[in-house]
């Protein structure tokens, strides 16, 4: 194992491909926040004029099954090899991964193949026997947030809004949460390493906001696979999320930004659950602290319609945040879906009635 030493991680920059990405979707992001990935593709294609290919044939990476001991490592290796075979078939060499769990899994497998070539040979054999397919190892594997980070200044140059309170002129205070599997496993795969990863904070700064450090910044969001997926462990899951909210509360953040689909979901929904248990929110009032993924925030400042970004799917109401930065939107269209169809609405948004 290569030991990196004598380096200041916060100044560390990883290599992020410039163009021509093969997109690898997230299982849970597509379900919980379906607008986020659509926005990511659109930002790359339409705003940044990049080539990104979204292959309908690709599947789960099996990461969640792997981390709950349901899917064996050999199976995950073969499934990921199949994703790479689709990439190879389409002539791409750079992967853009949407999910942090997947990003960790892809890196774990690429590292395994580097350290143990016999595992790579075995996987090639399994894939060939099962599907007749062959694959090349990608030249670059970046997470979606890496790519948005790389082009954050170009996005800022095209932006319609800034992360600034239009009434006070003050930058919005935004706390970041980095998914554990982004760089806790392989610090060199994350921008700025793990302790002070700058992948989200520099986006916040580039778009006019003020990143806020808080004591539990590196703590797990509470998902943690088994903490949530095993039902009897869910109190552990929520107590971890509570620890984060409690820690960020004194800083009075205007929003939370995350780079992980699972974190986005848990930091959003557990606020409601905690409010119902404790009778209070950690953002003051009844709403809570709005939670955005990096694509959603990029989409917002670029002027994407908040409802086309899917922000009505969030538990914590995003409208107070939209008003703070002056987004022009039609509240009447909040629950109007494609083709003008009413998609129904929750009994209330926010965390407390």
């Amino acid at each position, binding site marked *: 194992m290569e030991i990196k*030493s*004598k380096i200041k991680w916060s100044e560390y920059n990883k290599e992020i491909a410039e163009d021509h990405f093969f997109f690898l979707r997230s299982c849970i992001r597509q379900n919980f926040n379906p607008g986020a990935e659509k926005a990511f593709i659109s930002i790359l294609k339409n705003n940044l004029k990049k080539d990104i290919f979204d292959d309908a044939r690709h599947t789960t990476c099996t990461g969640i099954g792997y981390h709950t001991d349901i899917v064996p490592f050999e199976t995950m290796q073969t499934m990921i090899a199949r994703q790479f075979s689709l990439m190879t078939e389409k002539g791409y060499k750079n992967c853009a991964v949407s999910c942090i769990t997947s990003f960790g899994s892809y890196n774990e497998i690429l590292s395994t193949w580097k350290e143990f070539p016999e595992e790579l040979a075995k996987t090639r054999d399994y894939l060939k026997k099962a599907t007749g397919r062959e694959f090349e190892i990608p030249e670059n594997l970046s997470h979606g947030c890496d790519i948005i980070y790389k082009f954050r200044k170009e996005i800022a140059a095209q932006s319609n809004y800034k992360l600034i309170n239009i009434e006070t002129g003050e930058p919005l205070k935004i706390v970041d949460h980095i998914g554990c599997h982004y760089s806790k496993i392989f610090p060199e795969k994350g921008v700025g390493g793990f302790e002070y990863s700058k992948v989200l904070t520099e986006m916040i700064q580039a778009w006019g906001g003020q990143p806020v*450090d808080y*004591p539990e*910044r590196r703590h797990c969001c509470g998902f943690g696979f088994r903490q949530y997926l095993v039902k009897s462990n869910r109190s552990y899951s929520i107590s971890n999320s509570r620890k984060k909210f409690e820690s960020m509360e*004194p800083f009075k953040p205007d929003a939370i930004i995350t780079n992980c689909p699972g974190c986005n979901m848990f930091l959003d929904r557990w606020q409601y659950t905690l409010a119902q248990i404790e009778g209070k929110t950690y953002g003051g009032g009844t709403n809570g602290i709005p939670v955005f993924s990096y694509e959603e925030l990029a989409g917002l400042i670029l002027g994407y319609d908040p409802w086309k970004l899917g922000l009505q799917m969030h538990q914590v109401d995003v409208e107070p945040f939209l008003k703070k930065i002056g987004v022009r939107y039609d509240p009447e269209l909040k629950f109007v879906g494609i083709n003008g169809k009413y998609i129904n609405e929750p009994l209330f948004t926010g965390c407390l009635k």
Partner: protein
Amino acid sequence: MIKNKHVAIIGGGIAGMEAAAVLAKQGLKVTLIEKEAITGGKLNDWHHLFPDFFSPKTVIDNLIAKTNHSGVNVVYNTEISKIEKLNGRFELSDERDTKFYSDAVIIASGFRLFDATLKEEYGYGIFDNVITSVDFEKLMKTEGKLLTAQKTEPKRIAIIHCVGSRDAKTGNTYCSKVCCITGIKQAIEINKILPDSEIYCFYMDLRLYGLNFDSLYLHAQKQHKIQFIRGRLSEIAERFDKSLQLKTEDTLQGRPLRINVDTVILLIGMEPGASNNLFTKNNKVTIDENGFMKPINMHENRNSSTHDGIFLAGTVICPMAVNESIENARAAAFEVISYLEKNKL
């Protein structure tokens, strides 16, 4: 006659000064070359020495008096970067191409302090209330008190052992040896000036190798109520009120620990000097796997480098305490005399 022989010593810290004084007293011509404007090295910043709270100033003053009385030629503001053997003599030069010639050389250029900003999870250089053991010594020496960045008296202080030592993540797997006892000494000093404060030392294991070190450890617990917690720190974060949240573990109780303190002191380790690599060029001097100067034999002859006629003294070899550095330098001086006697023709 070796009395006509000339010895050049690189580094005017305590080891270089001691070796210079011993050699000059024996009648040799000695040039002591110091990169700073004063001699005494890092000890100039120190407040008290372990384990008896002795004054470092007394040590330096005595060494200055010894070098002055024995007729050592001290050259200041000169940093040697090249050692070469030409026509049977050594030629030492700096970046300005100032040259010195000698019949033997002692490298006594000391150590470098671990840069605590590399251990980002401990927040040095990020949070105002995280300081190093060296910052603490400077503060005590210049101001005689410990205050938080908010100018209040800290009520809880944590002292973190092994920062940049025994840590593969920082690339330093060796023990710096003197930090444990330094931490105990500093904890007692804090308790003396802030008797109502709570002081915690977080350690892996306490390496108290010297005479009276263990008794000072016991004294710290019994008389000064210092609390020793066996566990490594995982991270420090700053709270809204600028106090610090520590995530650590208590391995004796077998549980993780979260604790808030007002000030953290990092016991930073000793690293090989920055110039060690330069000294290996143009000659046969070598460095060990950690970057310290490599002696030909660590058991019987730690003062001889792998190049005949070039000797080593003090912490350029490995981490050492003040008394060891001085004794080691004295030994180096006698090795030089023995070498010159053998090669006097």
